[in-house]
């Protein structure tokens, strides 16, 4: 029987080039489904991995109680001093707590090529410890800002997408000029930010205090010690989370939204593709009715005919799926886009077409091929030999 299956399937597949038109419908239909599916999820994947790269489990973020995101939070100078002295925070090489009091303000820049529309960009004032806490961050062009001067270093993502975010340019904020002196890379969400010195940010934006404190923990478990100590202090009302918890909470909503969109769009498109596949395979069976009947008359069984039609549908779908994944990869992989993040500022991230996504796309393609091939193959197997021979 297997030899029968091989024989018929071989004939079917080899004859595909003779009837490219109809077969192409399945291939293109599924290429569309898989390309859309992969592209949407690659966007969600890219956003998540950008934020996930920012979050570390042994670094704590302290904000005012109930703030949820840094931009809402405000801490006074006394509060920040108290927080830095709390137990559980690792000491730096200079014996001081390894913690950075940071100020987050929002500035606006215009997108390259679209000068009428401005987008919110995070401006972050950091203390020297802030750089120790983010070892991945490297200035790749120009130099570091000098504390006390209105100088900025800009993230690679911002530099790529927005006007004036380049070394030697000036950015105007709150009636004063800021010189861009460097571009940095960090491989995470900070690449969407402008950085300066905490003190300068405070004076220039009329802030007396800070937004948050970022602190290195002695170990992953020290988060509990730190939290207990800060909660017990009646002078403070703060929330303590690990950096990882903070960022994964921010990705959840985006993931959910894009995930839901991907499921709905893919489901509807897959349905359309199933109809198209059914159409094509029915037509394929119909045009070959005489051929199939001849095979049956020669003694080939019904099952080999059924399997051969199924296999043809599956092979075509798989080819379509692969082309779709390839299209998604070529068009979208590493394409840099930006959207609004939790701080109400832009997060620049790149699409990530991962092998897992491609795998899922191909599974969908094969499933559609299976459903689309099933009914026509049953019809082919059940075709009464005599009528089919006469019909042609």
């Amino acid at each position, binding site marked *: 029987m297997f030899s029968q299956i091989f024989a018929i399937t071989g004939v079917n597949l080899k004859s595909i080039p003779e009837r490219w038109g109809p077969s192409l419908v399945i291939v293109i239909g599924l290429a569309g489904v898989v390309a859309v599916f992969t592209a949407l999820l690659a*966007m969600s994947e890219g956003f998540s991995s950008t934020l996930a790269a920012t979050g570390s489990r042994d670094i704590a973020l302290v904000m005012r109680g109930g703030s949820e995101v840094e931009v809402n939070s405000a801490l006074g100078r006394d509060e920040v001093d108290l927080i830095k002295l709390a137990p559980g925070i690792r000491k730096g090489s200079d014996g001081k707590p390894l913690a950075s009091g940071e100020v987050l303000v929002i500035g606006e820049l215009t997108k390259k090529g679209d000068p009428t529309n401005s987008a919110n960009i995070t401006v972050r004032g950091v203390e020297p410890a802030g750089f120790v806490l983010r070892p991945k961050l490297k200035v790749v062009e120009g130099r570091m800002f000098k504390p006390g001067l209105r100088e900025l270093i800009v993230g690679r993502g911002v530099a790529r997408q927005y006007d004036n975010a380049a070394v030697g340019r000036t950015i105007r904020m709150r009636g004063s000029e800021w010189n861009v002196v460097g571009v940095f890379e960090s491989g995470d969400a900070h690449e969407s930010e402008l950085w300066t010195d905490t003190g300068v940010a405070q004076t220039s934006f009329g802030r007396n205090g800070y937004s948050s404190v970022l602190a290195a923990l002695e170990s992953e478990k020290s988060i509990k010690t730190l939290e207990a100590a800060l909660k017990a202090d009646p002078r403070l009302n703060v929330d303590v989370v690990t950096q990882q918890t903070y960022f994964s909470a921010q990705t959840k909503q985006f993931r959910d939204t894009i995930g839901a969109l991907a499921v709905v769009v893919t489901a509807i498109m897959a*349905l359309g593709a199933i109809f198209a596949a059914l159409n094509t395979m029915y037509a394929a069976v119909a045009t070959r009715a005489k051929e199939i009947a001849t095979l049956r008359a020669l003694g080939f069984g019904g099952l080999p005919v059924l399997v051969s039609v199924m296999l043809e549908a599956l092979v075509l779908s798989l080819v379509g799926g692969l082309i779709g994944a390839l299209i998604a990869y070529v068009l979208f992989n590493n394409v840099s886009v930006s959207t609004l993040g939790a701080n109400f500022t832009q997060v620049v991230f790149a699409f990530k077409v991962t092998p897992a996504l491609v795998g899922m796309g191909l599974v969908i393609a094969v499933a559609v091929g299976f459903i689309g091939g099933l009914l026509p193959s049953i019809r082919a197997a059940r075709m009464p030999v005599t009528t089919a021979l006469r019909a042609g």
Partner: protein
Amino acid sequence: MTKTGFVIANLFRKKTRTSLTMLSIITAFLLFGLLQSVNALFNAGADYLGTARLITQARVSFTQPLPLRMRQEIEGVPGVEAVTQSQWFGGVWQGKDQLIALAVDPMRFHQVYPEWDLAEAQWKQFADTRTAMVAGRKVADQYGWKVGQKVPISSNIFPMKNGSKDWTFDLVGIVDGRDQEWKDKATQVWINHAYFDEENQFGSGSGGIYLIKLKNPDDAQKVARIIDAKFENSPDETKTQTEKDWNLGFVKQIGDIGLIVRWILFAVFFTLLLVVGNTMAQSMRERVPEMAVLKTLGFSDGSVLGFVMAETVALCAFGGLAGLALATVAAIAIQHTGIPLPLRVDWHVWGLGVAAILLLSLAVGLLPALRAKRLKIVDALAGR
């Protein structure tokens, strides 16, 4: 048999194929309708806001509050009818739902937005009660708020003087829109700025952004320039835009997602074109001898072309309209699930849909129809 009857009979000759093709057109237009309405959210959005209002924000960012003293200066600009401050409160309902809560000057707000419907007595109560708030019909219904009730709202930005972030307001009125578009938009909560200003810990004197009603919408650009010039080179430089541009800028911040939606549309449409196109071509190939017979019987080249085109148009129109209808229903269903996505498959989307149907019929029908028209009877009958 009439010509129409002939076309219909031809369509149903292969029931499986016709219904399958129809179903793929329906799914494609269902998707088209939904994606277009998402697309519309990103592009137009705020058409009905018009240009009769300006919004002044801090040049650096709208999150940087402008000082309250600026209100008087803006009021003095010729062409300005009314001005209110509007401060984002960061309101949170029951620890989880983010509210659109704004602190405004009640009577000034009423002047700037005559579109919001509320009894004059209630506007007055809003202004005279320190702890008053008014809520849009939609949000009040959603959380079951009743007039006269005390509503606890916490702020994720502003603590009160006593350090607590849990504020309580007296609901004195439920605001509705004066027409359907405004009714749909009644999702905000407004609190009395005077109370907010004196009770919040960060100190008083900040106004947030300014909402400005113009005497004459044609003056928008001129007034905007005068206001921005007034505050140039101060620490509180301003940026003044029409309300429409301001909202549009807001939506654009969500970024490149609109672009991606267009990509998806393109992929769907391309796929669809090939599926339907191929089906039509196939059904034509099978009927070459029939066309020849028709011509032999004396049907002109033109009417044979007409038959084929009519078949395609019927198939596309039927499937397309059904798909758009489904999308309309689906959008309404999405509204009812409470997902905060104001999807509406309106006449605009329908218009685009009908255009797409016409384009599709032309694209897939023209080639087979022309082929049928040019058919030589002798060749066709001989099977060449």
